[in-house]
């Protein structure tokens, strides 16, 4: 008995696979040269950004404030409740993160991994991961890179600003980030959707009185 599938079946599968893949290859993506991409948050060294945030994770809700400080090549991030109770502090580096403090109830590695990864996508300079610029069929400019952390990234640019980020690691883990601006350099609203984790983070920029020099 022939243990291999019928040659006709093999041919059909092969043709089907080729044709299925074809549309992706045919998307009008042309390499572009004259663009540059930088971190969506644009936090200068020593400066900070504060966002009001709500996190929905496996049907649990948590709200508070994200405070992000550019400490040279690292980012210090704190998340605290509106009333001032701290949830966690962490340091985010290019390929790693370190939790400095975390409230016991939140101290779950997959959760902290997902939050750190989401923030890294908007804090890091995309150009640090070697990539190329493309134009798609609608003439949108996309910066594509393979991160050093096994996450493939696509940054969608409009008016020289990143409006959307898509991240993918293997098939299951996907991260979608939408950024909207209101005449500012920094995005006014940021929405993160992490498919593998069923996590959604919504962040809104806060205009607040901040003092990062005087200790009390």
């Amino acid at each position: 008995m022939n243990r291999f599938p019928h040659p006709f079946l093999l041919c059909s599968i092969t043709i089907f696979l080729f044709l299925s893949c074809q549309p992706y290859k045919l998307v009008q993506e042309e390499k572009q040269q004259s663009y540059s991409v930088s971190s969506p948050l644009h936090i200068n060294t020593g400066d900070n950004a504060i966002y009001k945030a709500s996190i929905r994770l496996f049907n649990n809700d948590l709200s508070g404030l994200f405070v992000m400080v550019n400490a040279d090549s690292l980012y210090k991030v704190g998340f605290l409740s509106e009333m001032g109770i701290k949830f966690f502090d962490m340091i985010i580096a290019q390929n790693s993160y370190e939790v400095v403090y975390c409230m016991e109830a939140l101290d779950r590695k997959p959760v902290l991994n997902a939050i750190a990864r989401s923030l890294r996508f908007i804090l890091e300079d995309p150009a640090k991961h070697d990539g190329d610029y493309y134009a798609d069929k609608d003439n949108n400019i996309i910066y594509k890179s393979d991160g050093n952390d096994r996450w493939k990234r696509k940054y969608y640019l409009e008016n020289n600003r990143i409006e959307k980020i898509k991240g993918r690691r293997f098939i299951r883990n996907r991260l979608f980030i939408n950024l909207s601006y209101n005449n500012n350099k920094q995005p006014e609203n940021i929405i993160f959707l992490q498919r593998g984790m069923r996590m959604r983070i919504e962040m809104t920029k806060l205009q607040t009185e901040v003092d990062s020099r005087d200790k009390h």
Partner: protein
Amino acid sequence: MKTFLITLFCSFYFTAYGQSDFRPVQDIDAVGRKLDNMAKSLNSIQSDFHQEKYMDFLDVTLVSKGKFWFQKENSLRWQYTEPYNYIVVINDGVVQISDDGKDQEFQVKGNRIFEQVNNIIVASMKGDVIDNDDFDVRLFENDQYYLVRLKPLKREVSQVIHEMEMYFEKTSLQISKIRMNEPNDDYTLIRYTNRKINEPIPASVFTL
């Protein structure tokens, strides 16, 4: 070595009190009675507040402002107006939160930390903080204030709050500011201004 450590600790202790001019209260019972009498005469408070949250790791101080209302026995409305709108109402053991128009509600009893924080806030407003079994209470004074230092004895609270400092004005015996020190060097300082005592508050204030 042990003597050296004790000396070192004492020198820090007295230096700290020397700087802030606070000394231990001698007649704790008398001050306790004063605060207790004030608590008994108190029916309501309305006040503005100014909150500073200092985060040592980030070296950042966040400032927020708002208003609060307290009505005996346990009704409280804590409303942030700057830099965001956020309201917490505690009434009859129910917590209601309004976050930029999104409302939620839960029971205080189901949340041990919230229950503790609620007890502290209400007790501080009423002034009956001395007789509190959940804290190690110490009393200090200077010319202007009575300072009540509370160290939580329960683990779930001490993980979040290392120590609370409550400053009562000596003249009015009303609370002037609260400082919550966290296990790291972070702290939250809340100052109360424009206080109105025992003025009627509409019941609608304690609902969202």
